[in-house]
């Protein structure tokens, strides 16, 4: 049985923040879950995926976040408790349905999980999605620890039903990826059968309907403001003349700072668990109860500005500061020391931090950048493409996935990426705007996410470039989630598999090449043919991700390779051109680590001396 289905209230479990959210949804009787995976949210749907094998919970990995939001919307207006999960940039993709779903509202609890990534541990930007609550007019809840990740999720379903609005829960990487003890509660039964009561004058958002619905949203917003006053995860902690306001993970840093500085008897902390809408009376009361206020929030000064407005409206003149105090800035995530120093500085507490050890005399350390795994088929594809495009003035737009690491030397095959699907559409722009050759890269999951529309655009508008689809049979970077093009049978599912090749041909592409990248010669030939084609050409490079293959028991049986030191003339092409991490220098000689090598044979094909052979 899946551990999150444990039906014994009171049990304490060590859960990952993301697991706690999934458990909260199960406790709330969630019946319908959709997502597109994206770090730091990916472990939430992974739980639903596994739980759906054992229960009647409906779950799907949708092709992108917009689709996930729309599928969920259909279920939620039909009266099912529904959850949809994504990372912060995913909400940009889903923003279109989000804004109007806020108008129609829902007929059962619908929770939208949004995971922000301050400090960009694995993202292309660090946008603050608290603005989405303000933009859409939907309530936003922010838990502060693992227990609350579960409890607030349960509460979010209740709030959503009370308001008939979707509710957004915002987490950040440091909440999504912490493990802490969680006390389990009872699980409510799932209501799995929905029914949609037709009401076109509410659910069909033609202008005349939406004019009315916008007013309805504002009414619901007023109700939400009232409810924010008694929201159980808004809390005043401690008592004193100094005020600190905080949200999310920062609440922990503030609590520890106050206790470390020994000023717990002088500080009142306003912990905001519901950060939109704000109950102005509740906050004004807090502001009146203190002499000065420090706002501790990562990224944008969202609460700081709101508090200043509330203070002005109420004639409250207490100083309110946040950004600019100590090292509190609009950049990156906060840490305990930074917050402790800011609290000490703002309230005039004499305090010196323990100095870190002096590391100025340590030698320069070699960087350890992320790298494509040993035996990664993307490396072979990149090598083949480079043989054709390497000496040509060419632009190589890339996309979001493991293969983005092709950016790093010595592969260096990435020139532009802004978001998922962008390699195809930006390729259209580059090809038209310049005389340079364009070769774009996209993964299979990303192709289904939003590459298809770009490809249709390329065909229709007669853009001339090559698109390489790196098809490794899974969504690799986020942890091997399924997608429409994969063979799901090894995972125990008989889902229809959508052929990338058929889709590409169906989009109207005439020049299509399907290759196995570990066969370098044939791959290079295909790339050359595509290069010479006058139009849009697509190369589909198919080879399963070796880590995924291992996890489903389909690992290659290839023997590891070894360098015949007598034949090797130390050109180091293998090392310098492929950069496979299974290779290392032993003195001046290249060696292959047999524990890392998966026997893909690409290095053997690159070696000019034929010095690389399977290990006997």
């Amino acid at each position, binding site marked *: 049985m899946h551990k999150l289905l444990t039906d014994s209230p009171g049990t*304490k479990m*060590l859960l990952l923040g993301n697991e706690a959210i999934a458990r909260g949804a199960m406790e709330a009787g969630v019946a319908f879950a959709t997502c597109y995976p994206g770090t730091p949210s990916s472990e939430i749907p992974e739980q639903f995926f596994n739980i759906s094998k054992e229960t009647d919970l409906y779950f799907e990995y949708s092709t992108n976040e917009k689709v996930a939001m729309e599928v969920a919307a259909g279920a939620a207006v039909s009266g099912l408790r529904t959850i949809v999960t994504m990372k912060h940039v995913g909400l940009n993709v889903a923003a279109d349905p989000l804004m109007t779903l806020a108008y129609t509202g829902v007929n059962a609890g619908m929770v939208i999980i949004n995971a922000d990534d301050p400090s960009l*541990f*694995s993202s292309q930007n660090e946008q603050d999605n608290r603005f989405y609550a303000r933009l859409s007019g939907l309530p936003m809840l922010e838990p502060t*620890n*693992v227990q609350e990740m579960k409890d607030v999720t349960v509460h979010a379903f209740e709030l959503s039903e009370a308001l008939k609005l979707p509710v957004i829960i915002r987490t950040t*990487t*440091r*909440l999504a*990826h*912490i*493990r*802490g*003890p969680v006390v389990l509660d009872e699980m409510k039964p799932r209501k799995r059968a929905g029914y949609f009561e037709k009401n076109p004058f509410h659910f069909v958002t033609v202008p005349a309907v939406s004019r009315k619905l916008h007013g309805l949203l504002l009414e619901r917003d007023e109700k939400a403001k009232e409810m924010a006053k008694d929201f159980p995860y808004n809390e005043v902690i401690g008592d004193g003349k100094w005020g600190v306001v905080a949200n999310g*993970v920062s*609440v*922990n840093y503030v*609590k*520890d700072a106050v*206790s470390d500085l020994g000023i717990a008897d002088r500080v009142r902390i306003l912990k905001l668990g519901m950060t939109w809408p704000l109950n102005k009376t509740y906050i004004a009361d807090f502001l009146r109860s203190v002499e000065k206020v420090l706002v501790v929030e990562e990224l944008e000064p969202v609460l700081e500005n709101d508090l200043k407005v509330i203070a002005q409206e109420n004639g409250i003149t207490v100083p309110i500061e946040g950004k600019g105090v100590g090292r509190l800035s609009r950049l990156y995530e906060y*840490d*305990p*020391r*930074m917050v402790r120093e800011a609290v000490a500085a703002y309230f005039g507490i004499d305090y010196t*931090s*323990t*100095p*870190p*050890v*002096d*590391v100025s*005399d*340590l*030698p*320069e*350390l*070699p*960087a*350890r*950048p*992320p*790298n*494509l*795994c*040993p035996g990664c088929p993307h490396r072979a594809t990149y090598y083949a493409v480079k043989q054709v495009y390497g000496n040509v003035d060419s632009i190589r737009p890339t996309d979001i996935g*493991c293969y*983005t*690491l092709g950016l790093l*030397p*010595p592969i260096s095959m990435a020139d532009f990426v802004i978001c998922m699907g962008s390699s195809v559409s930006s390729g259209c722009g580059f090809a038209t705007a310049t005389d340079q050759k364009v070769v774009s890269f996209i993964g299979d999951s990303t192709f289904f996410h939003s590459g298809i529309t770009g490809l249709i655009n390329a065909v229709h508008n007669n853009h001339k470039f090559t698109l390489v689809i790196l098809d490794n049979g899974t969504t*690799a*970077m986020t942890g091997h989630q399924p997608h429409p093009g994969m063979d799901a049978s090894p995972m125990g599912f008989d889902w229809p598999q959508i052929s990338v090749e058929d889709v590409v041909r169906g989009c109207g592409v005439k020049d299509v090449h399907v290759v196995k990248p570990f066969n370098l010669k044939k791959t290079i030939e295909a790339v050359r043919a595509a290069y010479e084609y006058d139009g849009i050409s697509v190369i589909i490079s198919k080879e399963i991700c070796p*880590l995924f293959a291992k996890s489903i028991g389909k690992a290659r049986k290839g023997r590891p390779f070894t360098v015949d030191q007598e034949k090797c003339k130390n050109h180091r092409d293998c*090392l310098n051109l492929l*950069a496979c*991490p299974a*290779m*290392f*220098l032993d003195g001046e000689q290249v060696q292959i680590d047999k*524990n890392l090598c998966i026997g893909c044979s690409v290095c053997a094909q690159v070696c000019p001396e034929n010095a690389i052979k399977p290990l006997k």
Partner: protein
Amino acid sequence: MDTTRIICVGVGGQGNLLASNLLGQTALRLGIPVVVSEIHGMAQRGGVVESAVLMGDVTSPIVSDGECDILLSFEPVETARLLARCNKDSLVITNVQPLPPFTVSVGQGTYPSVDELLEKFRTKVRKMITLRGNQIAEDVGNPLSLNMVMLGALIGSGATPIGEEAMKETISTMTKKAFLESNLKAFEMGVGEAKKQAD
């Protein structure tokens, strides 16, 4: 209760997330307040992986510069990279066997002398425990058990509120049965090494 802030660092594939998770599970079972925080980089294999285990009266899930009580490092250069998280009273437990990053193989950096690194570390922190971790793991017949060796050294150091038996129980219930014997042996070897290097 007193706070113990531990940072675990290693390279993707070395198993340090499992180590920190086992530590967290044990603390939970013993009723010790605990938070574990993990950051996985963009690479599945070969990138830096860092996690933090905080036990006791603390709610912040991460450890700032100068505030780490114990640095448990699976790789010597990574020890150096995170040394600024320590202060003069910190304990550093480090594997001394390098896993050179690929940048070194292609000549974009030099791997510093491990002996010189260790010598410098010693002058900066209260105590160091050093292990030939990969060798020990190979000796017990399971090259993948480096994380158990390191976990053993951590528990053997006596610097955490967790005892050997409690940790072994978690390993027995939460790691793959096929590797149980070698995992426990690796753990015990780690404990032994730490005890040998006790004050």
